[in-house]
């Protein structure tokens, strides 16, 4: 079966760059990797950059005058430049490297835990999130509230998987200090109307944090157009290795807010009684950073830029529309989340009759099809829609309509197996 959907990338060529995609499993079945929202596969170009770094340049950064130390520093800081350009940051100093999105979000929450006026969060102030957040954008704010006496509020969800902003004026108020919201839901696929939230939050003087973990890999991300104050994302979902993430923050805020982790690299001077801190971003990067991983992220960004993020987005949009139609034709399957490709990312969660996702996933695995099953670290979403868990298929730039067809055929097999 051949497919000609407008907007698709040349996946035959792209897939050659990803060694793991040619694996076969379970007696020769080709791997159909549909777990991209959990983590992406890595192209040779990224793996080569990691190897080259370790084989040629490995040294610690920002300390030492020898050649390797200078090269390692240039590569690490070069990766920061690439990230800054990738997200259209006004300044490279606004790019803080972290270990992942979770650490980036915890970092913001901890800056605010210790902040003085005008950023102080305490009794009488509110923190606002949404019911569709990943646990990484819920728990840090619960901790902040427990530690400061602030109150946690959140936006609920509509039946069709969107944010319910009908009460935005009651949820975001003069008491609100910070609003943290996901750009694209990892479980529902929903792309949120951030402009309305940012506008209301800034009207009342609240900071806005955007969890862009499922956006940075998939669509052009422009932090200036977004107008948020902080943006978090994670390298491993965008072709880079694990262990590297990014917190972008407005320079003025990074300068004013206090550091969280202390250690080497983040200081200016240290005496036994007190220290002064390095300017941002180093103020927030205590200790030896994930150097090779940052270099790998830089290589991943080069790879994505060579294809073009607008083309990646168009490919996934076409594939998502195709997949939604195909899945809707499967008897007993119910999509949890928006059931159109409009304002939607490439992660599709669904319920399949009365079968538990674990069983669905296990029988799909036997056919070489890798999907994620469970609550996807967004348990409140499962509670909201009355399901214990979902099965989720999620696509990326190397995914094909043929893989969607394989999923649909796989689901028919699952039905037969338990039928």
């Amino acid at each position, binding site marked *: 079966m051949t497919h000609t959907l407008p907007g698709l990338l040349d996946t035959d060529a792209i897939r050659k760059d990803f060694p793991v995609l040619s694996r076969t499993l379970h007696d020769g079945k080709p791997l159909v990797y549909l777990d991209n929202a959990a983590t992406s596969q890595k192209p040779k170009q990224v793996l080569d950059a990691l190897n080259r770094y370790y084989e040629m340049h490995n040294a610690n950064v920002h300390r030492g005058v020898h050649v390797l130390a200078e090269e390692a520093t240039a590569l690490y800081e070069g990766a920061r430049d690439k990230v800054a350009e990738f997200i259209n940051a006004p300044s490279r100093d606004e790019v803080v490297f972290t270990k992942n999105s979770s650490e980036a979000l915890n970092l913001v929450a901890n800056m605010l835990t210790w902040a003085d006026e005008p950023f102080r969060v305490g009794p009488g102030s509110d923190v606002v999130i949404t019911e569709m957040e990943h646990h990484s954008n819920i728990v840090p704010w619960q901790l902040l509230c427990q530690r400061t006496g602030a109150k946690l509020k959140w936006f609920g969800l509509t039946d069709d998987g969107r944010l319910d902003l009908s009460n935005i004026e009651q949820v975001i108020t003069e008491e609100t200090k910070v609003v943290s919201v996901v750009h694209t839901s990892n479980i529902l696929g929903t792309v949120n109307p951030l402009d309305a939230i940012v506008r209301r939050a800034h009207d009342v003087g609240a900071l806005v944090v955007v969890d862009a973990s499922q956006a940075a890999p998939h669509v052009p991300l422009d932090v200036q157009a977004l107008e948020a104050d902080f943006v978090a994302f994670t390298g491993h979902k965008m072709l880079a290795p694990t262990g590297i993430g990014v917190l972008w923050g407005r320079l003025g805020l990074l300068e004013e807010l206090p550091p969280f982790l202390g250690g080497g690299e983040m200081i200016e001077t240290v005496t036994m009684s007190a220290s002064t801190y390095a300017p941002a971003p180093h103020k927030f990067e205590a200790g030896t950073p994930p150097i090779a991983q940052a270099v790998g992220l830089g290589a991943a960004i080069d790879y994505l830029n060579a294809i073009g993020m607008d083309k990646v987005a168009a490919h996934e949009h076409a594939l998502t529309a195709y997949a939604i139609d195909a899945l809707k034709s499967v008897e007993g399957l119910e999509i949890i989340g928006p059931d159109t490709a409009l304002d939607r990312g490439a992660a599709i969660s669904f319920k399949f009759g009365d079968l*538990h*996702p*674990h069983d669905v996933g*296990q029988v799909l695995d036997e056919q070489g099809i890798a999907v994620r099953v469970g*609550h996807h670290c967004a348990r409140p979403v*499962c509670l909201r829609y009355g399901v*214990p868990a979902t099965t989720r298929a999620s696509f990326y730039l190397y995914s094909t309509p043929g893989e969607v067809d394989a999923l649909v055929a796989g689901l028919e097999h699952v039905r037969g197996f*338990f039928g």
Partner: protein
Amino acid sequence: MGANAGMKLDSMYQEIILDHYRNPHHKGLRDPFDTEVHHVNPTCGDEVTLRVKLDGTGADAKVVDVSYEGHGCSISQASASVMTDLVIGRTVVDALKVQEEFLHLMQSKGQAEPDEDVLEDAVAFAGVSKFPARVKCALLGWMAWRDATTQVMEGQK
């Protein structure tokens, strides 16, 4: 290679398991009961609420009833069903021995020779022990039962 690469799915989904999944035994919450517990499998969202009713104390204590409600995969549901068959009517001491034997089987990574005289239908879960992600599913109901039973026994002291 993954631990289960090339492994046959049928070794996990034995017919006995599918039977218990389709027609679970002793399901539904019943009165009277001594205590109720709620256990979850945080990685996958399986949940069980389980009640136990014991009779007698100490070494004479007997499992009179175990009732449960929950949602989860075929493995967790079938395992809870098999567990109720195995523990209801036994002394707590004997039932705990069966539970230990089942736990041992599930931790064996497919290496243990299950004792069919002790485990009866539960031997069908031997294959599950080769799938690390599913062992917790098979243990959910058993762990809830042990927790509830231990709570009742402690409360008697």
